[in-house]
């Protein structure tokens, strides 16, 4: 039995269905990230777990206990809000201890708990300040302190890093990860940033329009996206999704990519998924991540199925650690990720290695993965 279990959760506002039957579960000590574009229902889902929104149908259980109708304060949860939601009229210490005060914890114990949390988060010198006197990163820390001090069964984070600047965001991301590793707490975390999702999660639920599109480990989500949306949403730079057709005869399939003013590329598929044979002669969407499309010298040595084809390089983007090359296949700009020192010039024709082991195919009609 999982620690957090959400079964058939539905949420309706009037006739509008915001959550359309969510099934998710998380083991104790796990880190679940709900990720998706704005309006996908991820924050609503988090609020239903917190008890800040009522649910229309379904069940939420924490540690075997159904919490559907419990008041937020009775659910043994703590929440970190996007705006941090620090009480402006109270000091940092007051903010951290407000919950304990409401629960009638004696002052001596409150002070002990504040000191302990302040030590963990290194905010001891800030305790007597008001939130308006803190920087963004410090506010973030205090907000986490307020959650930590409860020692709850479940931590809820609602886009906690989206108000920070880029550098600080990376620092705080690492800090949250460290906190999770050292305290072993169970966390549900909402973000629209797929990098946060990949780096932090033990489980990811990719959401769209109130439905979970895919639920799995970061590696599963990244390598085996179940549909076009997940493939497109996760990964930066995004996966190349190219219209293609399946060619070949008998068991030897190949993927055919159209090019402007030149004859199509045909790449032989050694271990094509079984479902692909039904698409012979039909259009598919060919998906290949930029790192699976590289210069032949930089290609993965032990990949079993690498095909090389000459491509016309239109643009070069040196990013320091890598060089990105843009070519055009099937009418779409396709990004290849090369080594930083790859000798390549824009406007030339260069061989690129396609790592077809990592390639995925989608049905253009249903947008589902072909397996």
């Amino acid at each position, binding site marked *: 039995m999982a620690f957090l279990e959400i079964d058939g959760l539905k949420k309706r506002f009037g006739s509008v269905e915001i959550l359309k039957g969510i099934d998710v579960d998380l083991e104790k000590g796990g880190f679940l990230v709900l990720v998706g574009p704005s309006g996908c229902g991820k924050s609503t889902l988090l609020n239903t777990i917190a*008890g800040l929104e009522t649910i229309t149908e379904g069940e939420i259980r924490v540690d075997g206990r159904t919490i559907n109708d419990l*008041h937020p304060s009775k659910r043994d949860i703590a929440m970190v809000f996007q705006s941090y939601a620090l009480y402006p009229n109270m000091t940092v210490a007051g903010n951290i201890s407000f919950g304990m005060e409401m629960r009638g914890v004696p002052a001596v114990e409150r002070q002990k708990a504040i000191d302990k949390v302040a030590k963990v988060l290194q905010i001891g010198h800030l305790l007597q300040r008001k939130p308006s006197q803190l920087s963004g990163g410090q506010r973030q820390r205090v907000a986490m302190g*307020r959650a930590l001090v409860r020692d709850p069964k479940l931590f809820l984070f609602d886009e906690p890093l989206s108000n920070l600047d880029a550098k600080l965001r990376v620092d705080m991301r690492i800090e949250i990860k460290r906190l999770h590793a050292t305290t072993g707490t169970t966390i549900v975390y909402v973000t629209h940033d797929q990098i946060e999702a990949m780096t932090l999660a033990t489980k990811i639920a990719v959401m769209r329009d109130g439905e979970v599109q895919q639920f799995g480990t970061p590696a599963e989500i990244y390598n085996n996206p179940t549909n076009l949306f997940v493939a497109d949403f996760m990964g930066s730079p995004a996966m190349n999704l190219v219209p293609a057709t399946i060619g070949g005869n008998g068991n030897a399939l190949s993927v055919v990519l159209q090019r402007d003013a030149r004859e199509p590329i045909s790449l032989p598929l050694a271990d094509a998924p079984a479902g692909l044979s039904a698409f012979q002669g039909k259009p598919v969407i060919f998906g290949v991540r930029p790192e699976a499309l590289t210069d032949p010298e930089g290609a993965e040595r032990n990949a079993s199925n690498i095909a090389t084809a000459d491509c016309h390089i239109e643009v070069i983007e040196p990013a320091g650690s890598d060089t990105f090359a843009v070519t055009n296949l099937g009418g779409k700009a396709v990004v290849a990720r090369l080594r930083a020192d790859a000798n390549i010039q824009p406007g030339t024709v260069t061989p690129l290695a396609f790592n077809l082991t990592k390639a995925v195919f989608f049905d253009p009609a249903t947008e589902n993965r072909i397996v």
Partner: protein
Amino acid sequence: MSAVATPARQVTGGISARTVNRIVIYGLLALFALFYLMPLFVMLVTSFKTMDEIQNGNMLALPQAPTFEPWIKAWSEVCSGLTCVGMKGYFWNSIKMVVPAVIISTLLGALNGYVLTKWRFRGATLVFALMLFACFIPFQSVLLPMATILGRFGRFGATLQNATGFSFGLGNSTVNLVFVHVVYGLGFTTLFFRNYYEAFPTELIKAAQVDGASFFQIFRRIMLPNSLPIIVVTVIYQFTNIWNDFLFASAYAGSGDVMPMTVALNNVVNTSTGVIEYNVNMAAAMIAALPTLLVYVVAGRYFVRGLMAGAVKG
């Protein structure tokens, strides 16, 4: 602006158009300020003059021999109708009415604003629209219905008095006026607080809920401490309105020793027997105006800030 500036530059040669504009603007402002301050000045200087000086001297002249006599007389001796005990009793009448009325209407307005924005219920918008409508009802139209209600209060108070020996304040003129002003002020105070709380971050309320704070704990510990600007606006607005009110005061407490300041002042000035003591009348009027002036001076800078907050974010 350039129409003023261009000829000015031609005439003076050296002075820039900007300087001329400044002179015109500040000149006009000073003129208007003078115009508005003139009556206050006349009242103030007259209140310190002797009657001889008023009858023989210039209205705008400074007092030759300043005296506090008129102020003392206005405070403790002046006649309002037939009773000659000064303004002090009526002054305290007003205070006793204004302070509770302001506190109660402000608190209720805050509570209304809190519920209308953070605990939205079905029909909340309609309720707010109706309360807003209360701001547009003219005073005169509620005079008679209110008199009927206050009459019932009085009878109920008399019944209670007979039954329990205590009327619970029902039928008391001051209590009546407090009730009237609270009811009439609710529309405005609710409007102020609703607009302020509309921009108040809802996540703070959610955080407090997760922390286990109850409805009233959130109100008292989170909402009120963060509402200083709008509380000041509401208090100034309500204090000025209620203190200066004449219509309700004269209708429901218009005679005897329960009169508020405004009604008493009117009676003092309208006394038609003997010599009209302008200096005493002016001093009495100044005493009547002092509390509102004081409130503005003490809380004025918050007033503008609070109005801005409501206007921009609401």
